[in-house]
């Protein structure tokens, strides 16, 4: 496993939930050039090199990232945001989460009509009378 894949999969391990498993972070085509270099350097520095991070256990990788997050919160947040932006906009992830791939416009979306029971509940509120002063 490459350094980048190890990093992405630690941030976003995905799951195997049926019938729509979430892919791991390395499974959506994120490349190193998409990510802030200073944050990547902070991770390798904390790990003692890319190879050390690659060969570390999942728990150790997570621990390394937590230390980077604590020591360099701005850089780490920039890294995380960059990863999340690509991950949660990818077709595979949006589909697995039950979202819609089509952009919001021009087709829009729909809301169910408010049912009679809800309007009846509102009538009780109306009948309470004035609560303003």
């Amino acid at each position, binding site marked *: 496993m490459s350094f980048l894949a190890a990093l992405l999969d630690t941030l976003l391990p995905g799951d195997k939930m049926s019938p729509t498993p979430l892919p791991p972070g390395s499974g959506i085509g994120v490349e190193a050039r998409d990510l802030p270099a200073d944050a990547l350097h902070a991770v390798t520095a904390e790990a003692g090199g890319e190879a050390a991070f690659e060969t570390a256990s999942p728990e150790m990788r997570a621990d390394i990232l937590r230390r980077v997050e604590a020591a360099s919160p701005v850089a780490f947040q920039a890294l995380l945001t960059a990863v999340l932006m690509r991950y*949660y*906009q990818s077709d595979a992830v949006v589909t697995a989460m*039950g979202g819609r791939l089509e952009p*919001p416009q021009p087709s829009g979306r*729909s809301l169910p009509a408010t049912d009679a029971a809800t309007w009846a509940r509102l009538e009780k509120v*109306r009948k309470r009378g004035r609560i303003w002063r």
Partner: protein
Amino acid sequence: MTRMDPVDVVVVGAGFGGAAFCWRLATRAPKLRIVCLERGGWVDRSTMPSFRRDWQAASFGAWATPPNTRLKSGEKLQTADYPIDDSNSAFKPLMWNGVGGSTMTWAAHFPRLHPSDFKTKSLDGVGDDWPFDYFDLEPYYDENDRMTGVAGLDGDPAYPPKSPRQMPPIPLGRLGMAAARGFDALGWHWWPVDAAVTSAPYEGRSACNYCGPCLMGCPIRAKASVDVTYWPKAIQAGVELRPHCIVQQVDIESGRATGVRYRDQAGNEILQPASMVVVAGNGIGTARLLLASGLDSPALGRNLMFHPAAYLRANFDEEMDGPVGPVGCMLYSHEFYETDPTRGFKRGVHIQVTRENSLLSMATRLGPPAWGEEAQQFLRKEFRHSMAVLVLAEDLPEAHNRVSLTDKTEADGLPGVKLDYTLSEHSRRSLDFGLDRGEEFLRAAGASSVLRIPLAPSTGWHLLGTARMGSDPANFVVDRDGRCHKVRNLLVADGSVFPTVGAVNPGSTIGALGLKLADGVARDAT
């Protein structure tokens, strides 16, 4: 410097206050020559993110709601933003600097203040009374509603009877119906919100198709931003709107405003003489310009008020609507809006049930943990199954909460601007009370889990109070007509003039106030 022909009135800022003021004045005093200078431009709706597959990411770049985020994004912007030093502020300012102002990216939740909000001093011994009351403003609320187009439901017992809403309420959706069950179980007040969103075609605007991301602009003009409501009518009535004009200074000589100096898009320095100057740049922009212009008023820039905000996120086993429909426009409760002395604080809280945000927005607000298996599994459970409750408290005026200038000159030619804002103990108690009630409600509605977010820093939409309205020049910047005490032909027509702010969104009141202040000017001019 180029000197323009003198005009009767020059207005600075084309947001809600400036737009309403200009339209009303032009229709009431059609002989006046009115020019509005706006630092930003018109938005090209074809560029709005909702048409794109990568629309979710836009909220982190050119369509982010904080100007500081937009500036840092490095993207090409449609706004004319300036940096704001918010490092000493509990809330981070949000605004849109262009034609339409922050209505371009607002949620369009459109409540009025309550009658009691105008009398907090006399009723509850806190804050200050407004120089007029709800019923003085009521006809302007009605007119502002008509110009805006409000979807809502008549008969809300939390308010005096209002004029008929222009359109039926926005559908509540599964989320709203679940929320109604919760409020009903507790016997609390709830009501569909007044929304500045079309639920049916209105005055040439199409009905909302519930696409979701209102905060990135509405490409179909269903959301009532003032670039599609007031401005076309104001321009038709004769107002000249000049975009991309950044006002550098209001010229004040011997206690009178003589005009403004501005920089146009080409960088030309221009003098615009005027018989009257009206500033409508929001609680930060207005204070910044007037401080830079040397307006003599001890209260200027002070008493900055937001609406302190906190929220709860709850998960439900049942499937909800997902990120569908106007995010801030569903229903609310004012069960606890008015003062109850047994609570240990004065005034009350606004409890608002909101719709889901985009998947990416939800992912980026996770935490801790914000990443890893636990975070992903939480989002799995949350997306399409969640309900958020926003709690707004009434901010009270405190002089130490303020807008001030820095020593730096920014790229737009004006001094830098800094916020100092500390959350008060009163606000903290109010929010904690509201969070307790919100959690009680969510449990009653059937939530399987509830997460409390004790403070929501990125909610600084409501920039209010820095040029407050009142009779004492030592404590207030403008009088009941919006005229500066020290410079009588210099007015402020935006949320800066609010003496107190209630606990609800201010847009409706800013618009109504703009109309009322314009009537005062028209009356004096004719």
